[in-house]
């Protein structure tokens, strides 16, 4: 009897152990890109200004151009031949006009020369041309094969140009914006004196991604130093007219077209990173008066006035700080570093005007619009969280913007790419895998050692 029972127990136990449940794992072998999808992106062309050119950290440079969203999209669609005017390190950008250098780098997160700061005091500066003697401003390409590439570049976007320049500019000297990068991207007269639009059309693109108009506003809103600037943004009706001509020309090519609308540029950390109060140079925290209140900077008349990032230098020299406090010279902050409340209103109205124009021009032509306005707004209003990481508009740490405070970083570019892939996919029946942002974050780890 006892043995029977023990045998029974053992049998049951064995049975249970051998039949215990197992998790059925779904098989997944990676997303494939169909021939149709590859064809759609095979002759992709990008047109527009800074954002779509892949301009980041204040410059155009191969290190970051490869992470421009247009290239990221092409790569996702298995197009490894998206040609860009790749520039050697340190590239050309806002600090190049004065001959200083190229791309901006974060030298220190907390300046070692001010060891007593409570808030970190980041040091951002351009990489000096003098440290890269092989870099030639007049032949900045990363390789001869790029310079001599016999076809138009797939990325024909040019940093620092106005929308009208896409239609008329063949060389810097024949442009409105006078952007020196026109010559780098268009390579005229050798390229037959064709404009960016003409080069795009003769290439017979399969897909055109167009994102233009932002610089028509930025050229007014930001401090451009020795560069080109506008006294007012390109008026909405003029923008609409140029934009319509571009779109109508592109429609003649049979290419699929996708258009980005304009973000509210006043949200960029460039307009928010510098505090509007006097900062204690020792602690890097707001200096308090005898009533423990922060001391407002001179020259800001309204709460809605925005202080631009380059104001930092003027403040360091004493501007905006009352006399008798630190090195204050009692002079107001120069107006060129302030976007005052009225100007902010004008910028926002113009953004909305452009977006209404884009919406209506594209709407009647059945061209999909990628809502970049919405993405940039999301980043600034609570942020966008992906896999535990929240992209915000915080300067340096927010993840979305590069350290120039205006243009998206590689991670921001990847978010943008995924928005475009979404819209292109749903309008042209393609389902291209998204850029794997968590993986990209690992890929970028190598950037600390690579120029």
């Amino acid at each position: 009897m006892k043995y029977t029972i023990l045998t029974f127990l053992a049998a049951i136990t064995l049975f249970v152990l051998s039949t215990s449940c197992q998790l059925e794992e779904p098989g997944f072998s990676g997303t494939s890109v169909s021939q149709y999808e590859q064809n759609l992106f095979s002759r992709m062309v990008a047109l527009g200004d800074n954002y779509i050119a892949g301009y980041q950290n204040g410059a155009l440079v191969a290190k970051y151009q490869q992470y421009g969203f247009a290239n990221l999209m092409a790569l996702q669609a298995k197009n490894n031949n998206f040609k860009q005017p790749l520039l050697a390190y340190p590239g050309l950008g806002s600090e190049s006009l004065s001959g200083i250098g190229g791309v901006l780098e974060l030298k220190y997160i907390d300046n070692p020369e001010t060891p007593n700061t409570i808030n970190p005091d980041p040091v951002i500066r351009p990489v000096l041309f003098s440290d890269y003697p092989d870099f030639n401003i007049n032949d900045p390409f990363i390789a001869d094969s790029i310079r001599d590439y016999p076809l138009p570049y797939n990325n024909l976007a040019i940093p620092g140009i106005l929308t009208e320049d896409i239609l008329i500019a063949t060389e810097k000297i024949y442009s409105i914006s006078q952007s020196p990068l026109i010559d780098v991207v268009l390579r005229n007269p050798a390229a037959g004196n064709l404009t960016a639009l003409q080069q795009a059309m003769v290439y017979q693109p399969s897909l055109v991604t167009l994102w233009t108009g932002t610089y028509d506003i930025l050229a007014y809103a930001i401090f451009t130093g020795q560069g080109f600037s506008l006294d007012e943004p390109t008026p909405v009706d003029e923008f609409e007219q140029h934009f319509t001509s571009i779109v109508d020309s592109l429609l003649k090519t049979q290419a699929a077209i996708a258009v980005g609308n304009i973000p509210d540029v006043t949200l960029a950390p460039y307009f928010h990173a510098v505090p509007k109060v006097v900062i204690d140079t020792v602690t890097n925290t707001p200096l308090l008066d005898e009533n423990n209140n922060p001391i407002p900077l001179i020259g800001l008349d309204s709460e809605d006035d925005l202080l631009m990032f380059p104001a930092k230098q003027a403040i360091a020299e004493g501007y905006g700080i009352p006399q008798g406090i630190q090195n204050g010279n009692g002079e107001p902050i120069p107006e060129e570093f302030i976007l005052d409340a009225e100007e902010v209103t004008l910028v926002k109205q113009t953004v909305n005007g452009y977006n209404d124009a884009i919406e209506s021009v594209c709407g009647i032509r059945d061209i999909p619009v990628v809502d970049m306005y919405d993405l940039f707004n999301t980043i600034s209003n609570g942020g966008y969280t992906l896999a535990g990481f929240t992209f915000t508009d915080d300067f340096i740490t927010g993840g979305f913007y590069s350290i120039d405070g205006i243009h998206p970083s590689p991670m921001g570019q990847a978010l943008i790419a995924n928005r475009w892939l979404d819209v292109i996919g749903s309008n042209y029946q393609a389902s291209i895998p998204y850029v794997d942002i968590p993986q990209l974050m690992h890929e970028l780890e190598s950037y600390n050692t690579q120029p």
Partner: protein
Amino acid sequence: MKFHLSKLLLMIFLGISMALASGFSIYEQNARATAMAGAFIAQGTDASAVFYNPAALTKLDGLHINAGTTIISTDFGFSGPEAIEANQYTPAEPGLFPPSTVYLSYKMFDQISLGFGIYSLYGLSSKWTEGLESWPGEQLSTNAKLESFFYNPTLAVKIIDNLSVAAGFSFIQSSVRLEENIYYVPRSHFVHSVLEADGSGYGLNLALMFRPFDKMNIGIHYRNNATLEYDNGDARFSFSSTGNNTVDQELRALFPAEVKGSSELELPSFLGIGIAYRFTDNLLAEFDYTQFGWSSYDKLVVEFDQPVGGETISESVKNYEDSYSMRFGLEYRFFDKMHLRAGYIWDRHAVPEAYVEPSLPDGDRHNYTIGLGYQWNTFSLDLAYQALLQDDREINNSVHGFNGEYKGLANIFAISLGYSLNSF
């Protein structure tokens, strides 16, 4: 300069993990009870009543000892995140942990019994990767483990023949280890963070056992919401060299090799009500409703004794909800000394959809239990098997930007040995 390193750190340390009953409670504390789906509050026919319903201890004469182990083998996986690739599947490492129990009961006088138990009411373990190894959810959790030990003396009093009450006190010891990877944006570099801490606290429990008529028993068991204090824990940060000295030093300054951290965890209250009915001499059935007040776990706050990434406090919102289970168990006696048991549990999730994350892939569960018991003379042996099948849980509104689908199950094997000395 307006500058928020804090945002980086908001998500630090904040997972707590996989569990058995929803949330991270473990209700499988004896093989006999487990075989009956844990529907045991209205029985208490061995010393494990210390755990299930100490008021039942008055039914046990003399001295009883019961010891056992539950082997919990878990298997979980995640498909997603949707924002990148909905079908990308990552399995968690299979988990195996053995919470064990010891129970004693002794009837001092006819009306008064004493009991003592050691058990692990809370515990969890979820591991996705090791160290800095990557997986899509690494910024939420790479490894999480929590253990607890309850040292629980209890006193049961028989008030009248068919009514007993009990009160108990628990000293609770716990250890926790939470790991994740943090992305330091300014240098595009991952830092691995480990938080390890030991904690302790005190809990109280009250119970009642009532026999309205011969064939029926009703039991009630309540535990208060004890708070565990984790003081003087270690937060450790490691990263691979960036290859750039300046940057390495910067990372080290922001993420010290070791800092001290402390935290608090308010455990849920518990309420269980059971009704047992003896249909025949050989057939007994019990139905229990059990509820954990998981809404106590609304956030987890860790305080550091020096800044980490510029912040000394990290807070993460948990927003758990109260969860409940329906437990139905049957026991059939045959061959006089053998008991065949079976049961079913429906267990409702404790983590609301928006807050589900990989450290605790919580969901509604169906549990099926089966088991055998054998008694010879003063000895007893009980075995149980429980299949925990979790409904696939699709997350569409994750606050962590981690939408996707969690799958999971666990196999639970329990063994308990009992010894009783009636005329002690």
